């Protein structure tokens, strides 16, 4: 599967989620921490996961949901690229 546009799609999902959950309309860089910085709480990340699963047709198990994979747009993109092969 081609990986074109993965980062753009991820960015748009995350920006929407951040806007919805915090009311913040901020420009997100690919290295901006989301969970560790306190922007998103780790409970609300569950909604983001649901969006990512349906957008990229992948299964994300509880064990995958960690700071390493989900703290930045960069790491989420990387994770999805590996999953989608």
């Amino acid at each position: 599967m081609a990986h074109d546009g993965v980062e753009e799609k991820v960015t748009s999902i995350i920006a929407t989620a951040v806007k919805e959950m915090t009311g913040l309309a901020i420009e997100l860089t690919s290295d901006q921490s989301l969970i560790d910085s306190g922007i998103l709480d780790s409970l609300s990340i569950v909604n983001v996961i649901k969006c990512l699963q349906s957008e990229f047709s992948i299964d994300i198990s509880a064990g995958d949901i960690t700071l390493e994979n989900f703290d930045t747009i960069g790491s989420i993109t990387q994770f999805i690229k590996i999953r989608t092969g």
Partner: protein
Amino acid sequence: MENVLAQFSQVVGKFPDRIAITHYASRDQKTDITFSELDQRASRCADYLQRSGVHPGDLVGVYMHRHIEHVVATLAILKSGAAAYSINIRAMVPQVNYILGVSRTKFLFIDNTALLTLGTSEEILPDTIELVHCAGAKMNPVHEQLLEKIRTSAHVQTHPCAEVHFPVGTHCPVVNHDTALVLFTSGSTGLPKGVMISHQDLINRALTECRYFSITAEDCLLSLLPFSFDVGCNQMFTALMTGARLLILNSWLPGDICSVINTCRVTGISGVPAIWTGMLDAADESMAKALSAVRYITVSGGDLPLPQLERLQRLAGAARIFKTYGQTETFRSSILQPEEYDKKMASVGRPVRGTEVIILNKKGMRATANEAGEIIHRGDGMMLGYLADVPATRKKIRKNPLRNADALTPQFVVYTGDIGKIDEDGYLYILGRKDKMIKTSGYRVYPREITDRVTAYPAVKEAVVFGVADEKIGKRIHCVIQLKPEAAATEQEIRHYLAARLPSYMVPAKIYFTDSFPRTESGKIKNSEVEKAYNA
């Protein structure tokens, strides 16, 4: 005289090169600071504050996410002679402004996350505020831009702590009954109230936990809770006072918590029910193994339903579980110790040393065993009062009603507003909030009596119960339920289950289902919001 700063100085002298704090951002990204480094940075920053005109008695705020700089700033404020408070990083500008106003704050420490909120809001801060920006390592172009934007309407000092090398002067004397901290309660209704804590009480609160949890310099305490929340804040001070390492993790994801326990050898975790229910949802063998390696864990800031507490006990294996009860205004009122679990699991234990818990019945007398009434707290842990709110303080702190009115020295107690009972062995049970009592068909019902039954149903994760006005019976009982992930149940099934276990007047007239509950920053369900949403 003892205070947290003096204790911290002793620890610095004893263990200068030990790691005081580790901030765990991910498996490959950790930052450490030693006790001597922490002390020096805080002292330099305190000097900066003093030179900038901070006086003893002032209030200085910290609006940052939980990382090392947050602890540096808090210590610096105390060293400068001022009192410190934290604003939860998820607070928005109107809340921040309210707190700045009520506390007459002149200096506010901020970090990059705060820039994101302050820089994108249409509201601006009062121009009397001096912002002290501690960037931390990562400053990206967006932060730079927002910082510039904020500078157009506010005064911003950039990181004074790390670079400036003032000779470190002598700091202010600490007076025991002066305010050391203000904790803003994330009230489920209305505006936040500032709970003022004295130096004396701050150390008492910390010592209580040090004693009960046997915290020593060999411990590594996992910090999961906001420093703006009494439990998270107190844990930070227990670590600083004993020489234990504080391990900061800004994630409640079970995968992260387990990974940190395993890699950093965590010995103690202070948790709230939302953390433990999240862990239980993802429970597996590796989690059981990780938790068993922890010496103690706490269930604080709310009660875990019994079936979940039992599951947690099985999951945590060798870890000792402490269940605590208290309010920001009283800190710890009671603690249920691990060895008491088998007999008194439904209780919140017995009063902590140095405090008395009284149940006041409807007649204003001390209740008999198992008689319900308002919980009154007396002794250690009592706040000084609410910041700039005398009427609210007078309502919360009153003269001890059981003491002879002619006594020469008046004695004050905290009216918790919680309803509870004490059994014949002295164990305290919480029934609910006084203002949440439901009068239905002539009976007095506390939501807790029903939610305990509802959450015992296997498919139910959490439940909220409230009363809805009814002409005939006073209040009808309604219940909102969140099911466990991938579990199913119908209203009828749950009603049948409850009908077999509760008197008919307690069985909810209506049951709703929800995907998630609105929560406070410490993970507590916002009952009033739920009630409003389903009562419309």
